[in-house]
């Protein structure tokens, strides 16, 4: 399957997953959560790591420097990156069976040591500084199932996300560098989340989760691993 074919396949499934999540939200919005009723809010937060063998391609707006106007466009990637940060997440469970993640937010910064990345843009040399990057991860609606076994709960979900990354860049101006500010990349992701939780009471639990990327920059491009504290039946 060509890359073009992969993108089409993935996009179809993304649309399906998003539609299911949106349908779930519409059907159950406005319901008052109560233990005896069919859906319950879930809140979570925790630390997480991400690993991206392929980082996104950053783009630059046309920028005036002391020497010239550098035309806007693609400025390449910063290579394989590892990230560490934290996140918060919100969703709801339906009938103690279905898990509907709704929205979250995570902020990550790179860990490790990275070499400068040199690219060219409109004829000028541009330098990206990978260690200055940061990544905002906005998990979007998805769908999953959960199983409880005594004090343990296991969840599997398919999750979408929007990822916004940016990194500091500068451009060669003769013998000196001119600051380009931060160049950014925005991309769509699909992840499969698998969670194992230890329940301390009916509404609180500590979890560990892993989420390989079904699609993020590319097919099967890395994934995430994290801990989570959850509230909700």
């Amino acid at each position, binding site marked *: 399957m060509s890359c073009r074919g992969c993108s089409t396949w993935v996009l179809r499934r993304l649309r399906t997953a998003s539609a299911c999540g949106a349908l779930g939200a519409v059907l159950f919005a406005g319901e008052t959560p109560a233990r005896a009723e069919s859906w319950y809010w879930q809140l979570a937060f925790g*630390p997480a790591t991400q690993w991206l063998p392929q980082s996104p391609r950053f783009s630059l707006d046309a920028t005036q420097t002391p020497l*010239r106007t550098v035309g806007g466009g693609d400025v390449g990637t910063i290579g394989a990156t590892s990230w*560490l940060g934290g996140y918060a997440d919100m969703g709801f469970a339906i009938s103690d069976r279905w898990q509907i993640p709704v929205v979250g937010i995570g902020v990550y910064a790179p*860990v490790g040591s990275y070499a400068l990345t040199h690219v060219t843009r409109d004829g000028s*040399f541009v330098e990206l500084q990978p260690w200055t990057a940061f990544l905002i991860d906005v998990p979007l609606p998805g769908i999953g199932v959960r199983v409880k076994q005594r004090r343990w709960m296991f969840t599997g979900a398919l999750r979408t996300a929007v990822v916004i990354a940016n990194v500091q860049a500068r451009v060669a101006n003769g*013998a*000196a560098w001119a600051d380009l500010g931060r160049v950014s990349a925005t991309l769509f992701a699909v992840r499969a989340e698998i969670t194992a939780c230890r329940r301390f009471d009916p509404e609180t639990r500590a979890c560990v989760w892993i989420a390989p990327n079904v699609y993020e920059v590319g097919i099967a491009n890395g994934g995430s691993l994290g801990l989570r*504290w959850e509230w909700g039946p």
Partner: protein
Amino acid sequence: MNRSFGVALALVALLASAAPLGGCAAEDTSADQTDQASGAALTPRRGAVIVDGCSLDTFQAEALASPSAKKVLKEVVFLCAVPRYDGTVQPSDPSALATLAALVDKLTMAGYSVRIGVSFTDETGTRYDGAQTASLLADASWRGEVTAALHTFAVTSHAAGLEIDLQQLPATARADVTAFMGALSTAVRPAAQLVLLAPPSVSAPSDVVGGDAIDLVAIAPLVDRVRVMTVDFSCCGGMPGPTIDSGWAVDAVRFAGGLGASNLDVAFPLFGVDFGPGGQRSVSWLEAQGLADSHQQPIVRGPTGAPNFHYQDGDGAHALWFDDAVSTIDTLDAWSVLSPDVGVVYFGLGSEDPALWDAIARRLP
């Protein structure tokens, strides 16, 4: 509940400790810079090289004889002819002309197209006096004599054409320059080619000395090619720096193209520059390496990739900037933004990194 609270606290503590760790990415200074273009094929371009003089030394001859140079270069320009005050063109003695013709024939047999470059210097052959040249160009009879002499020179030397290098002219010479180029075009073309070595202006009025004397809109139809001389980026009393900036060169070529010049070359300097208390002077790659070694100075790369270093000698502090095979190829790769029709003219054969032509040839498809 106590256990739950404790676990929650532990997670919060872990999150809090992770936050500063998340900012702990650092630059790996031991690693080579990651160049996303490395290894990719260069855009094939028409290549030419300018020799400053009327002959080749051993190094230059060996370079041109190499298969790598023949893959990269198709044209050789000898900056050899100098119009004189009396309307003649030198060199004019039969021995010099015969030697030049033999050299041109030899290079032509080797597959090169050879042209004669015409430098409008004063009669020292090294200095440009724009005011004097402008006054000569204003004399129609002088223009006529020089035109005829240059035509004869091209024929006698067996060259495929002439390349005109007019520098540091005042803007008032604009009309006379155009008239001169028109007369040359009539005399030389189409039997031979006529090429203009143009100042690297990026704006109108021009930002370089002599730029406004060249009316590219009028001259472009009169010549077969325009070589935009994007060398000497840091020169003429300015701050020490690289001899070329790739982005600046792109702008100069685009500007020339916007004025109607369609057969364009961008120039790359093969020489470096030593900036010292007494002024600037051109240096070769070999001399640059020798100076760095003798003064035990580390060579670093500037933002454009150009190697450079500083040293002290009897007359004070020096800054030396030059190019090598790596910086040259990086610039050629940066120029992928230019149309493949834009050629490259390398200025200063004999000053380059000895590994240059092999390195470029390997990267060509």
